[in-house]
C-alpha cells in the first residue's frame, strides 16, 4: 500500500527562533498588530510503500527523527494518510 506522509519540523520550545521573531516584528507594519507567537518551521511531504499504516508510520517517524529534524533543537510532527502525494 502507498501512504502519503507530511512531516512538520519546528524548533523545540525554548529554542530561539530568529526567523519567527523577524517575521513577527514586520507584522505591525502590515497591519497585523493582533498576530503574536510566530514560529517558523518547515514541512516535508513524501509517499511511503508499506504493508499497513503502522509500518508506514514507523518508517516515516524514523526518517523524521534520523534526518528531517535535528533532535538537539527541533521537533517533528507526522501526519499520515492513505493515497499518493499530489
Amino acid at each position, binding site marked *: 500500500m502507498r501512504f502519503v506522509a507530511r512531516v512538520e519540523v519546528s524548533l523545540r520550545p525554548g529554542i530561539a527562533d530568529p526567523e519567527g521573531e523577524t517575521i513577527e516584528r514586520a507584522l505591525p507594519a502590515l497591519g497585523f498588530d493582533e498576530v503574536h507567537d510566530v514560529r517558523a518551521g518547515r514541512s516535508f511531504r513524501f509517499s511511503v510503500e508499506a504493508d499497513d499504516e503502522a509500518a508506514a508510520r514507523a518508517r516515516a517517524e524514523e526518517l523524521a527523527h534520523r534526518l528531517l529534524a*535535528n533532535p538537539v533543537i527541533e521537533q517533528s510532527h507526522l501526519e499520515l494518510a492513505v493515497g499518493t502525494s499530489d
Partner: protein
Amino acid sequence: MATRVGVVVFPGTNCEHDVVAAVDGLGGRGELVWHGQERLDDFDALVLPGGFAHGDYLRPGALARFSPVMGAVARFAADGGPVVGVCNGFQVLTEAGLLPGALQKNVRLRFLCTPVALVVTSGRSVLTRDVPVGTTLRVPINHFLGSYVCDRSTLEELRAEDRVVLRYKENPNGSVDDIAGITNGAGNVVGLMPHPERATSELLGSTDGVPLLRSLLDSATGARAA
C-alpha cells in the same frame, strides 16, 4: 616528513584550498580528500573546511553526515587522530554526533562576515594546546548559522570539563555562553565557527590563526610519534 593533513571536500565545500595553503605555509602538507572515499590515507590530522556541503540542503551538515568518508572520519577521531571542523565543518561534526550541540541561525537573522576578537579559554584541545589561555586572537567569521545551541546539561558538562576552547569577546551571533569553539572529551576533535586559515598572513589582515594551526600541526606530529 611533513605533517600530512587531509582536507575533506564535500560537494559545495569552498574553503579547502585556503586550508591547504595555510597548512603548506606552516610547513605541513595539505591534501584534498573527496567525500566519496570510504578509506583515508595515512593522515596525521583531518580538517573539515568551510563552505556549503551538499548545498546545506535540509540543514548544514545534515546530508554531509551520510557521505561515505564520514565513517572513516569517525574512526580516525575514535583512534585519537586530530580532527578540526571549521565553520561548515563544525556544523558537519555536530550533525555527525562527533561534537555535541547544534548551530542555529544567527540572532536577528544576520549574515556575518567580519573579523572578531576571540579569547582562548581552554588549552585542552589539539587546536589550542600551544596557545596560552587568555590570549586574544583576531580571526574572521563568515556565517549565517553560527549560533551555538545546546541543552543545559551539555553546557554544564562542557564547562566542567573545560571543553569550551574559544569564546567571542563580543558575542556576534547569539551563541550560548559566547561559545565560538568546543572540543570533545578527549580534546582531539574541535569545532569552531571562525576561520583560522583566513588569518595566516598580514596581507589578509591578521596572522592570529597561525598559533591555532601550528598547535594542530604540532599535535598531529605528536600523535604520529606516539
